[in-house]
Protein backbone atom coordinates (compact mmCIF):
# COMPACT_ATOMS: atom_id res chain seq x y z
CA UNK A 1 0.00 0.00 0.00
CA UNK A 2 1.28 3.45 -0.92
CA UNK A 3 1.07 6.10 1.77
CA UNK A 4 -1.40 8.90 1.07
CA UNK A 5 0.99 11.75 1.76
CA UNK A 6 -1.68 14.47 1.63
CA UNK A 7 -3.69 12.63 4.26
CA UNK A 8 -0.65 11.79 6.37
CA UNK A 9 0.66 15.35 6.33
CA UNK A 10 -2.75 16.70 7.35
CA UNK A 11 -2.26 14.83 10.65
CA UNK A 12 0.85 16.87 11.49
CA UNK A 13 -0.16 20.44 12.47
CA UNK A 14 3.43 21.75 12.43
CA UNK A 15 3.85 20.95 8.74
CA UNK A 16 1.63 23.93 7.84
CA UNK A 17 4.12 26.36 9.39
CA UNK A 18 6.18 28.86 7.49
CA UNK A 19 9.85 29.47 8.31
CA UNK A 20 11.41 32.76 7.21
CA UNK A 21 8.57 33.27 4.75
CA UNK A 22 8.87 29.82 3.16
CA UNK A 23 6.82 26.65 3.71
CA UNK A 24 8.51 24.48 6.34
CA UNK A 25 10.59 21.69 4.79
CA UNK A 26 11.40 19.50 7.78
CA UNK A 27 14.36 17.24 7.01
CA UNK A 28 15.55 16.57 10.56
CA UNK A 29 13.47 13.61 11.68
CA UNK A 30 16.53 11.57 12.66
CA UNK A 31 17.06 14.27 15.27
CA UNK A 32 13.44 14.36 16.42
CA UNK A 33 10.27 13.52 14.52
CA UNK A 34 7.18 15.67 14.34
CA UNK A 35 4.05 14.52 16.20
CA UNK A 36 0.65 13.76 14.68
CA UNK A 37 -2.56 15.17 16.12
CA UNK A 38 -3.50 11.67 17.30
CA UNK A 39 -0.52 11.57 19.68
CA UNK A 40 -1.03 15.12 20.94
CA UNK A 41 -4.73 14.45 21.54
CA UNK A 42 -4.11 11.17 23.37
CA UNK A 43 -1.78 12.97 25.76
CA UNK A 44 -4.15 15.88 26.27
CA UNK A 45 -7.10 13.54 26.81
CA UNK A 46 -5.15 11.63 29.45
CA UNK A 47 -4.19 14.81 31.28
CA UNK A 48 -7.69 16.24 31.11
CA UNK A 49 -9.71 13.13 31.95
CA UNK A 50 -7.64 10.30 33.45
CA UNK A 51 -4.69 11.80 35.33
CA UNK A 52 -3.62 9.88 38.43
CA UNK A 53 -0.42 8.23 39.58
CA UNK A 54 0.27 4.67 38.44
CA UNK A 55 0.75 1.39 40.29
CA UNK A 56 -0.15 2.70 43.74
CA UNK A 57 -3.71 4.03 43.75
CA UNK A 58 -6.97 2.23 44.45
CA UNK A 59 -9.07 5.10 43.15
CA UNK A 60 -10.64 5.25 39.70
CA UNK A 61 -8.27 7.78 38.16
CA UNK A 62 -5.21 5.91 39.40
CA UNK A 63 -6.63 2.69 38.02
CA UNK A 64 -7.35 4.27 34.65
CA UNK A 65 -3.87 5.80 34.50
CA UNK A 66 -2.27 2.46 35.38
CA UNK A 67 -4.30 0.66 32.72
CA UNK A 68 -3.30 3.25 30.10
CA UNK A 69 0.39 3.17 31.12
CA UNK A 70 0.55 -0.64 31.09
CA UNK A 71 -1.54 -0.65 27.91
CA UNK A 72 1.15 1.47 26.26
CA UNK A 73 3.77 -1.04 27.39
CA UNK A 74 1.78 -3.87 25.79
CA UNK A 75 1.47 -1.98 22.50
CA UNK A 76 5.19 -1.26 22.42
CA UNK A 77 6.07 -4.85 23.31
CA UNK A 78 3.91 -6.17 20.48
CA UNK A 79 5.34 -3.57 18.11
CA UNK A 80 8.89 -4.93 18.51
CA UNK A 81 7.90 -8.59 18.83
CA UNK A 82 8.77 -8.95 22.53
CA UNK A 83 7.83 -12.27 24.13
CA UNK A 84 5.98 -10.45 26.93
CA UNK A 85 5.23 -6.86 27.98
CA UNK A 86 7.41 -7.20 31.09
CA UNK A 87 10.45 -7.25 28.80
CA UNK A 88 9.88 -3.57 28.02
CA UNK A 89 11.36 -1.17 30.57
CA UNK A 90 10.37 2.47 30.21
CA UNK A 91 13.31 4.87 30.33
CA UNK A 92 13.54 8.53 29.46
CA UNK A 93 15.36 7.84 26.16
CA UNK A 94 17.79 5.48 24.41
CA UNK A 95 20.70 6.97 26.33
CA UNK A 96 19.17 5.98 29.65
CA UNK A 97 18.33 2.52 28.31
CA UNK A 98 21.96 1.94 27.27
CA UNK A 99 23.23 3.37 30.55
CA UNK A 100 20.91 1.05 32.46
CA UNK A 101 22.67 -1.96 30.92
CA UNK A 102 26.15 -0.39 31.09
CA UNK A 103 25.83 0.57 34.75
CA UNK A 104 24.45 -2.79 35.86
CA UNK A 105 26.72 -4.86 33.61
CA UNK A 106 29.72 -4.64 35.93
CA UNK A 107 27.61 -6.50 38.46
CA UNK A 108 25.60 -9.03 36.47
CA UNK A 109 28.46 -9.81 34.09
CA UNK A 110 31.09 -9.70 36.88
CA UNK A 111 33.30 -7.61 34.64
CA UNK A 112 36.97 -7.15 35.38
CA UNK A 113 40.40 -6.86 33.77
CA UNK A 114 40.79 -9.28 30.87
CA UNK A 115 37.13 -8.99 29.85
CA UNK A 116 36.24 -7.18 26.64
CA UNK A 117 33.33 -5.04 25.47
CA UNK A 118 32.94 -4.48 21.72
CA UNK A 119 31.31 -1.47 20.04
CA UNK A 120 31.88 0.12 16.64
CA UNK A 121 33.33 3.28 15.16
CA UNK A 122 29.84 4.01 13.80
CA UNK A 123 28.19 4.57 17.19
CA UNK A 124 26.29 7.57 18.43
CA UNK A 125 28.16 8.89 21.47
CA UNK A 126 25.40 7.47 23.67
CA UNK A 127 26.37 3.93 22.61
CA UNK A 128 30.06 4.61 23.08
CA UNK A 129 30.65 6.78 26.14
CA UNK A 130 28.69 4.58 28.64
CA UNK A 131 30.85 1.61 27.58
CA UNK A 132 34.04 3.67 27.85
CA UNK A 133 33.02 4.55 31.41
CA UNK A 134 32.14 0.93 32.19
CA UNK A 135 35.59 -0.18 31.04
CA UNK A 136 37.24 2.57 33.11
CA UNK A 137 35.34 1.43 36.20
CA UNK A 138 35.99 -2.27 35.80
CA UNK A 139 39.34 -2.50 34.04
CA UNK A 140 37.69 -4.27 31.09
CA UNK A 141 38.94 -3.44 27.59
CA UNK A 142 36.90 -1.61 24.97
CA UNK A 143 37.35 -2.76 21.36
CA UNK A 144 35.53 -1.74 18.19
CA UNK A 145 34.58 -2.60 14.64
CA UNK A 146 35.87 -0.14 12.06
CA UNK A 147 33.91 1.48 9.24
CA UNK A 148 34.66 0.85 5.56
CA UNK A 149 35.08 3.62 2.98
CA UNK A 150 31.53 2.86 1.80
CA UNK A 151 30.25 3.52 5.31
CA UNK A 152 29.58 -0.13 6.15
CA UNK A 153 30.52 -1.92 9.33
CA UNK A 154 33.87 -3.66 8.77
CA UNK A 155 33.25 -7.21 9.98
CA UNK A 156 36.40 -8.65 8.40
CA UNK A 157 38.00 -9.15 11.85
CA UNK A 158 34.81 -10.45 13.49
CA UNK A 159 36.23 -13.71 14.83
CA UNK A 160 39.26 -11.99 16.34
CA UNK A 161 37.32 -9.01 17.68
CA UNK A 162 34.57 -11.06 19.28
CA UNK A 163 36.29 -13.84 21.20
CA UNK A 164 36.20 -15.83 24.44
CA UNK A 165 37.07 -12.68 26.41
CA UNK A 166 34.12 -10.75 24.99
CA UNK A 167 31.28 -10.25 27.45
CA UNK A 168 29.03 -7.89 25.52
CA UNK A 169 28.77 -6.42 22.02
CA UNK A 170 26.76 -3.23 21.53
CA UNK A 171 26.35 -1.86 18.01
CA UNK A 172 24.01 0.41 16.16
CA UNK A 173 21.19 -1.01 14.00
CA UNK A 174 20.95 2.00 11.72
CA UNK A 175 23.61 4.72 11.79
CA UNK A 176 22.27 8.16 12.71
CA UNK A 177 24.89 9.81 10.53
CA UNK A 178 25.66 7.50 7.58
CA UNK A 179 22.19 5.98 7.28
CA UNK A 180 23.75 2.51 7.07
CA UNK A 181 21.50 -0.36 8.19
CA UNK A 182 23.58 -3.08 9.82
CA UNK A 183 22.49 -6.70 9.60
CA UNK A 184 23.53 -8.00 13.03
CA UNK A 185 23.11 -11.70 12.12
CA UNK A 186 26.82 -12.61 11.86
CA UNK A 187 27.72 -10.61 14.97
CA UNK A 188 24.89 -12.23 16.97
CA UNK A 189 25.95 -15.72 15.85
CA UNK A 190 29.59 -15.13 16.75
CA UNK A 191 28.81 -13.40 20.06
CA UNK A 192 26.49 -16.17 21.21
CA UNK A 193 29.04 -18.76 20.11
CA UNK A 194 31.54 -17.28 22.58
CA UNK A 195 28.92 -16.61 25.27
CA UNK A 196 28.71 -12.83 24.86
CA UNK A 197 25.53 -10.75 24.96
CA UNK A 198 24.44 -8.46 22.13
CA UNK A 199 22.80 -5.06 22.52
CA UNK A 200 21.44 -3.21 19.50
CA UNK A 201 20.93 0.55 19.46
CA UNK A 202 17.63 0.75 17.58
CA UNK A 203 17.06 4.50 17.98
CA UNK A 204 17.02 4.98 14.21
CA UNK A 205 15.57 1.62 13.16
CA UNK A 206 12.44 1.04 15.27
CA UNK A 207 10.88 4.30 13.97
CA UNK A 208 11.48 3.49 10.31
CA UNK A 209 11.10 -0.20 9.49
CA UNK A 210 9.75 -3.39 11.06
CA UNK A 211 11.97 -4.51 13.94
CA UNK A 212 11.37 -7.86 15.58
CA UNK A 213 13.60 -8.71 18.53
CA UNK A 214 12.99 -12.44 18.20
CA UNK A 215 14.06 -12.44 14.54
CA UNK A 216 17.14 -10.34 15.34
CA UNK A 217 18.15 -12.78 18.07
CA UNK A 218 19.73 -10.02 20.17
CA UNK A 219 19.63 -9.72 23.96
CA UNK A 220 18.88 -6.02 24.47
CA UNK A 221 17.66 -3.16 22.33
CA UNK A 222 17.30 0.55 23.10
CA UNK A 223 15.03 3.03 21.36
CA UNK A 224 13.42 6.38 22.01
CA UNK A 225 9.90 7.73 21.63
CA UNK A 226 10.49 11.18 20.17
CA UNK A 227 12.06 9.82 16.99
CA UNK A 228 8.96 7.68 16.29
CA UNK A 229 6.18 10.31 16.46
CA UNK A 230 6.01 10.18 20.26
CA UNK A 231 6.92 12.85 22.80
CA UNK A 232 10.33 13.52 24.34
CA UNK A 233 11.07 12.08 27.78
CA UNK A 234 10.07 8.49 27.04
CA UNK A 235 12.14 5.66 25.62
CA UNK A 236 12.54 1.97 26.24
CA UNK A 237 14.94 -0.79 26.99
CA UNK A 238 13.91 -4.21 25.76
CA UNK A 239 15.76 -7.15 27.26
CA UNK A 240 15.23 -10.91 27.36
CA UNK A 241 13.32 -11.49 30.58
CA UNK A 242 15.75 -13.98 32.09
CA UNK A 243 18.52 -11.39 31.66
CA UNK A 244 16.50 -8.54 33.16
CA UNK A 245 15.77 -10.82 36.09
CA UNK A 246 19.50 -11.21 36.76
CA UNK A 247 20.17 -7.48 36.68
CA UNK A 248 20.30 -5.31 39.82
CA UNK A 249 18.32 -2.05 40.11
CA UNK A 250 19.78 0.95 38.33
CA UNK A 251 17.95 4.04 39.60
CA UNK A 252 16.41 2.67 42.79
CA UNK A 253 13.43 4.21 44.53
CA UNK A 254 9.69 3.90 44.94
CA UNK A 255 8.18 1.29 42.58
CA UNK A 256 11.45 -0.63 42.28
CA UNK A 257 11.02 -2.40 45.60
CA UNK A 258 9.38 -5.50 46.96
CA UNK A 259 9.91 -5.15 50.73
CA UNK A 260 11.78 -2.39 52.53
CA UNK A 261 13.01 -2.45 56.10
CA UNK A 262 15.57 -0.14 57.71
CA UNK A 263 18.03 -2.99 57.47
CA UNK A 264 17.61 -3.70 53.79
CA UNK A 265 15.46 -4.01 50.70
CA UNK A 266 14.36 -6.68 48.28
CA UNK A 267 13.48 -5.64 44.78
CA UNK A 268 10.49 -6.02 42.49
CA UNK A 269 10.71 -8.17 39.38
CA UNK A 270 11.29 -6.46 36.00
CA UNK A 271 10.20 -4.07 34.65
CA UNK A 272 9.20 -2.32 37.93
CA UNK A 273 12.70 -2.98 39.31
CA UNK A 274 14.09 -0.50 36.81
CA UNK A 275 11.36 2.15 36.91
CA UNK A 276 12.18 4.13 40.06
CA UNK A 277 9.97 7.10 40.87
CA UNK A 278 6.83 8.32 39.15
CA UNK A 279 7.44 7.57 35.47
CA UNK A 280 6.60 9.86 32.52
CA UNK A 281 3.04 8.50 32.40
CA UNK A 282 1.56 10.90 29.86
CA UNK A 283 4.59 10.46 27.62
CA UNK A 284 4.32 6.66 27.75
CA UNK A 285 0.67 6.94 26.74
CA UNK A 286 1.72 9.31 23.94
CA UNK A 287 4.23 6.75 22.74
CA UNK A 288 1.52 4.10 22.79
CA UNK A 289 -0.60 6.36 20.56
CA UNK A 290 2.39 6.82 18.26
CA UNK A 291 2.70 3.05 17.92
CA UNK A 292 -1.02 2.89 17.05
CA UNK A 293 -0.44 5.50 14.35
CA UNK A 294 2.57 3.68 12.91
CA UNK A 295 0.66 0.39 12.93
CA UNK A 296 -2.27 2.01 11.14
CA UNK A 297 0.01 3.10 8.29
CA UNK A 298 2.01 -0.13 8.44
CA UNK A 299 5.76 -0.26 9.03
CA UNK A 300 6.34 -2.03 5.71
CA UNK A 301 4.57 0.80 3.89
CA UNK A 302 6.52 3.41 5.82
CA UNK A 303 9.78 1.68 4.99
CA UNK A 304 8.90 1.43 1.30
CA UNK A 305 8.02 5.12 1.17
CA UNK A 306 11.30 6.07 2.80
CA UNK A 307 13.25 3.83 0.44
CA UNK A 308 11.67 5.68 -2.50
CA UNK A 309 12.38 9.08 -0.97
CA UNK A 310 15.95 8.04 -0.20
CA UNK A 311 16.58 6.86 -3.76
CA UNK A 312 15.16 10.15 -5.04
CA UNK A 313 17.29 12.18 -2.59
CA UNK A 314 20.52 10.31 -3.32
CA UNK A 315 20.06 11.07 -7.00
CA UNK A 316 19.01 14.71 -6.44
CA UNK A 317 22.01 15.34 -4.18
CA UNK A 318 24.43 13.63 -6.53
CA UNK A 319 23.19 15.97 -9.27
CA UNK A 320 24.18 19.11 -7.31
CA UNK A 321 27.75 20.03 -8.30
CA UNK A 322 30.21 19.97 -5.41
CA UNK A 323 28.08 17.74 -3.19
CA UNK A 324 29.68 14.57 -1.79
CA UNK A 325 27.56 11.96 -0.01
CA UNK A 326 28.98 10.07 2.97
CA UNK A 327 27.88 6.47 3.46
CA UNK A 328 26.17 4.08 1.05
CA UNK A 329 25.34 5.74 -2.27
CA UNK A 330 22.33 3.56 -3.10
CA UNK A 331 19.19 2.81 -1.04
CA UNK A 332 20.16 -0.85 -0.50
CA UNK A 333 21.04 -1.48 3.14
CA UNK A 334 20.55 2.11 4.12
CA UNK A 335 17.75 4.25 5.52
CA UNK A 336 16.47 7.75 4.90
CA UNK A 337 19.27 9.63 6.61
CA UNK A 338 21.76 11.19 4.22
CA UNK A 339 24.85 13.14 5.26
CA UNK A 340 26.87 15.12 2.77
CA UNK A 341 29.49 17.81 2.22
CA UNK A 342 29.23 20.87 0.02
CA UNK A 343 32.66 21.59 -1.40
CA UNK A 344 34.24 24.65 0.22
CA UNK A 345 31.32 25.43 2.52
CA UNK A 346 31.19 24.53 6.20
CA UNK A 347 28.04 22.61 7.29
CA UNK A 348 27.05 25.45 9.65
CA UNK A 349 26.89 27.82 6.73
CA UNK A 350 24.99 25.26 4.63
CA UNK A 351 22.43 24.81 7.42
CA UNK A 352 22.07 28.54 7.97
CA UNK A 353 21.34 29.34 4.33
CA UNK A 354 18.96 26.37 4.03
CA UNK A 355 17.11 27.59 7.14
CA UNK A 356 16.71 30.99 5.51
CA UNK A 357 14.77 29.10 2.80
CA UNK A 358 12.68 27.16 5.34
CA UNK A 359 14.69 23.93 4.90
CA UNK A 360 15.57 22.46 8.32
CA UNK A 361 18.57 20.11 8.30
CA UNK A 362 21.03 19.20 11.00
CA UNK A 363 24.68 20.22 10.91
CA UNK A 364 27.63 19.33 13.12
CA UNK A 365 29.14 16.04 14.23
CA UNK A 366 25.74 14.47 14.98
CA UNK A 367 26.97 13.04 18.30
CA UNK A 368 29.12 10.67 16.26
CA UNK A 369 32.43 12.48 16.16
CA UNK A 370 34.49 9.33 15.43
CA UNK A 371 32.53 8.93 12.17
CA UNK A 372 33.42 12.49 11.12
CA UNK A 373 37.05 11.79 12.01
CA UNK A 374 36.89 8.54 10.03
CA UNK A 375 35.84 10.49 6.93
CA UNK A 376 38.27 13.35 7.61
CA UNK A 377 35.77 16.14 8.18
CA UNK A 378 34.98 18.22 11.28
CA UNK A 379 31.25 18.11 10.61
CA UNK A 380 28.60 17.03 8.12
CA UNK A 381 25.25 18.31 6.87
CA UNK A 382 22.46 15.77 7.30
CA UNK A 383 19.02 15.54 5.74
CA UNK A 384 16.76 12.88 7.25
CA UNK A 385 13.35 11.74 6.11
CA UNK A 386 10.23 10.18 7.53
CA UNK A 387 6.77 9.00 6.59
CA UNK A 388 5.66 12.59 5.82
CA UNK A 389 8.60 13.55 3.56
CA UNK A 390 7.75 14.38 -0.06
CA UNK A 391 9.80 14.55 -3.25
CA UNK A 392 8.89 18.26 -3.41
CA UNK A 393 10.79 18.69 -0.16
CA UNK A 394 13.84 16.97 -1.64
CA UNK A 395 13.59 19.36 -4.59
CA UNK A 396 13.52 22.28 -2.14
CA UNK A 397 16.68 20.92 -0.53
CA UNK A 398 18.44 20.65 -3.89
CA UNK A 399 17.38 24.21 -4.81
CA UNK A 400 18.62 25.40 -1.42
CA UNK A 401 22.01 23.83 -2.05
CA UNK A 402 22.26 25.72 -5.33
CA UNK A 403 21.67 28.89 -3.29
CA UNK A 404 24.40 27.84 -0.84
CA UNK A 405 26.82 27.48 -3.74
CA UNK A 406 25.81 30.90 -5.06
CA UNK A 407 26.45 32.68 -1.73
CA UNK A 408 29.84 31.02 -1.32
CA UNK A 409 30.85 31.09 -5.01
Amino acid at each position, binding site marked *: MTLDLVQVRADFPILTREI*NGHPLVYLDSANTSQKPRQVLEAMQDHQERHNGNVSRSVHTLGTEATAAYEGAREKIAAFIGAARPEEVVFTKNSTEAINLVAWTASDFLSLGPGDEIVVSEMEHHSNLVPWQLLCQRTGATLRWFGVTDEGRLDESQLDELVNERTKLVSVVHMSNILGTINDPARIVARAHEVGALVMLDCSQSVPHFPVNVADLGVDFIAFTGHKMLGPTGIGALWGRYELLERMPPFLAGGSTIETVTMAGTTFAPPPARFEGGTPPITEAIGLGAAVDYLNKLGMENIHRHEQEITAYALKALADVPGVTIFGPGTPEGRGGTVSFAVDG*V*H*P*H*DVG*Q*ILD*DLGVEVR*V*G*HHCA*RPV*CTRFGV*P*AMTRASFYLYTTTDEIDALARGLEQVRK*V*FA
Partner: protein
Amino acid sequence: MIDQLYQDIILDHYKHPHGRGLRDPFQGEAHHVNPTCGDEITLRVTEDLSEISYDGMGCSISQASASVLHELLKGRTPGEAFEIHEAFLALMQGRGQVEPDEDVLGDGIAFAGVAKYPARVKCALLPWMAFKDAAARAGISVNPEVKA
Protein backbone atom coordinates in the same frame (compact mmCIF):
# COMPACT_ATOMS: atom_id res chain seq x y z
CA MET B 1 18.08 38.96 6.73
CA ILE B 2 20.59 36.28 5.68
CA ASP B 3 22.53 38.97 3.79
CA GLN B 4 23.18 40.72 7.11
CA LEU B 5 24.81 37.54 8.37
CA TYR B 6 26.87 36.74 5.30
CA GLN B 7 28.22 40.20 4.54
CA ASP B 8 30.84 40.50 1.81
CA ILE B 9 33.46 41.49 4.42
CA ILE B 10 32.89 38.20 6.27
CA LEU B 11 32.95 36.11 3.10
CA ASP B 12 36.15 37.90 1.99
CA HIS B 13 37.89 37.17 5.29
CA TYR B 14 36.69 33.55 5.09
CA LYS B 15 37.98 33.03 1.55
CA HIS B 16 41.18 35.06 2.05
CA PRO B 17 42.10 34.86 5.74
CA HIS B 18 44.68 37.27 7.12
CA GLY B 19 47.62 35.93 9.12
CA ARG B 20 46.49 32.30 9.10
CA GLY B 21 49.01 29.63 10.10
CA LEU B 22 50.82 28.94 13.37
CA ARG B 23 54.14 30.73 13.82
CA ASP B 24 57.07 30.66 16.27
CA PRO B 25 58.14 32.06 18.62
CA PHE B 26 55.18 32.60 20.90
CA GLN B 27 54.64 32.94 24.65
CA GLY B 28 51.01 31.90 24.97
CA GLU B 29 48.88 29.36 23.13
CA ALA B 30 45.27 28.25 23.55
CA HIS B 31 43.20 25.58 21.82
CA HIS B 32 39.45 26.10 21.91
CA VAL B 33 36.74 23.77 20.68
CA ASN B 34 33.05 24.26 20.13
CA PRO B 35 31.80 20.86 21.35
CA THR B 36 28.40 21.10 19.68
CA CYS B 37 29.72 21.61 16.16
CA GLY B 38 33.34 20.49 16.28
CA ASP B 39 34.84 23.83 15.26
CA GLU B 40 38.39 24.25 16.52
CA ILE B 41 41.00 26.97 16.77
CA THR B 42 44.56 27.11 18.03
CA LEU B 43 45.80 30.63 18.64
CA ARG B 44 49.26 31.89 19.64
CA VAL B 45 50.45 35.28 20.87
CA THR B 46 53.80 36.84 21.71
CA GLU B 47 53.97 38.68 25.02
CA ASP B 48 54.04 42.10 23.27
CA LEU B 49 51.26 41.10 20.81
CA SER B 50 53.67 41.85 17.95
CA GLU B 51 52.58 38.49 16.52
CA ILE B 52 49.25 36.69 16.65
CA SER B 53 49.02 33.46 14.68
CA TYR B 54 46.27 30.88 14.44
CA ASP B 55 45.01 27.81 12.68
CA GLY B 56 41.72 26.03 12.84
CA MET B 57 38.77 24.61 11.04
CA GLY B 58 35.24 25.78 11.18
CA CYS B 59 32.44 27.74 9.61
CA SER B 60 32.77 31.04 7.74
CA ILE B 61 31.80 33.01 10.83
CA SER B 62 34.43 31.52 13.17
CA GLN B 63 37.18 31.58 10.55
CA ALA B 64 36.44 35.12 9.38
CA SER B 65 36.30 36.21 13.02
CA ALA B 66 39.83 34.85 13.58
CA SER B 67 41.07 36.72 10.52
CA VAL B 68 39.49 39.97 11.74
CA LEU B 69 40.93 39.40 15.22
CA HIS B 70 44.40 39.02 13.73
CA GLU B 71 43.99 42.23 11.78
CA LEU B 72 42.61 44.20 14.72
CA LEU B 73 44.78 43.06 17.62
CA LYS B 74 48.21 42.32 16.16
CA GLY B 75 50.73 44.99 17.15
CA ARG B 76 48.40 46.66 19.65
CA THR B 77 49.27 47.44 23.26
CA PRO B 78 47.48 45.22 25.78
CA GLY B 79 45.32 48.19 26.76
CA GLU B 80 44.19 48.77 23.19
CA ALA B 81 43.63 45.07 22.61
CA PHE B 82 41.52 44.94 25.76
CA GLU B 83 39.36 47.81 24.57
CA ILE B 84 38.76 46.21 21.17
CA HIS B 85 38.10 42.82 22.78
CA GLU B 86 35.48 44.37 25.06
CA ALA B 87 33.84 46.20 22.16
CA PHE B 88 33.62 43.00 20.09
CA LEU B 89 32.15 41.07 23.03
CA ALA B 90 29.60 43.82 23.65
CA LEU B 91 28.63 43.77 19.97
CA MET B 92 28.20 39.99 19.89
CA GLN B 93 26.23 39.86 23.12
CA GLY B 94 24.04 42.82 22.15
CA ARG B 95 21.30 40.78 20.40
CA GLY B 96 21.58 43.12 17.43
CA GLN B 97 20.83 46.22 19.55
CA VAL B 98 24.43 47.52 19.78
CA GLU B 99 25.62 50.05 17.20
CA PRO B 100 29.26 49.14 16.43
CA ASP B 101 31.99 51.79 16.27
CA GLU B 102 33.98 51.31 13.07
CA ASP B 103 36.92 53.33 14.48
CA VAL B 104 37.35 50.67 17.19
CA LEU B 105 36.21 47.51 15.42
CA GLY B 106 37.21 48.05 11.78
CA ASP B 107 36.01 45.06 9.72
CA GLY B 108 34.60 43.68 12.98
CA ILE B 109 31.48 45.79 12.43
CA ALA B 110 30.46 43.26 9.78
CA PHE B 111 29.65 40.86 12.63
CA ALA B 112 26.77 43.08 13.84
CA GLY B 113 24.38 40.83 11.85
CA VAL B 114 25.72 37.69 13.55
CA ALA B 115 24.45 38.99 16.90
CA LYS B 116 20.90 38.44 15.61
CA TYR B 117 21.56 34.70 15.27
CA PRO B 118 22.03 33.39 18.83
CA ALA B 119 23.20 29.98 17.56
CA ARG B 120 26.07 31.62 15.67
CA VAL B 121 27.33 34.05 18.33
CA LYS B 122 29.52 31.34 19.81
CA CYS B 123 31.09 30.77 16.37
CA ALA B 124 32.13 34.42 16.18
CA LEU B 125 33.44 34.42 19.75
CA LEU B 126 35.52 31.21 19.48
CA PRO B 127 38.79 32.93 18.38
CA TRP B 128 38.27 35.82 20.79
CA MET B 129 37.93 33.47 23.76
CA ALA B 130 41.01 31.57 22.60
CA PHE B 131 42.88 34.90 22.36
CA LYS B 132 41.93 35.78 25.93
CA ASP B 133 43.33 32.47 27.21
CA ALA B 134 46.46 32.63 25.07
CA ALA B 135 47.16 36.18 26.25
CA ALA B 136 46.73 35.16 29.88
CA ARG B 137 49.17 32.28 29.36
CA ALA B 138 51.66 34.72 27.83
CA GLY B 139 51.49 36.71 31.05
CA ILE B 140 49.50 39.54 29.53
CA SER B 141 46.04 40.21 30.68
CA VAL B 142 43.68 41.83 28.22
CA ASN B 143 42.40 43.64 31.27
CA PRO B 144 45.20 46.07 32.34
CA GLU B 145 43.65 46.65 35.76
CA VAL B 146 44.01 42.98 36.60
CA LYS B 147 47.66 43.11 35.60
CA ALA B 148 48.32 46.16 37.80
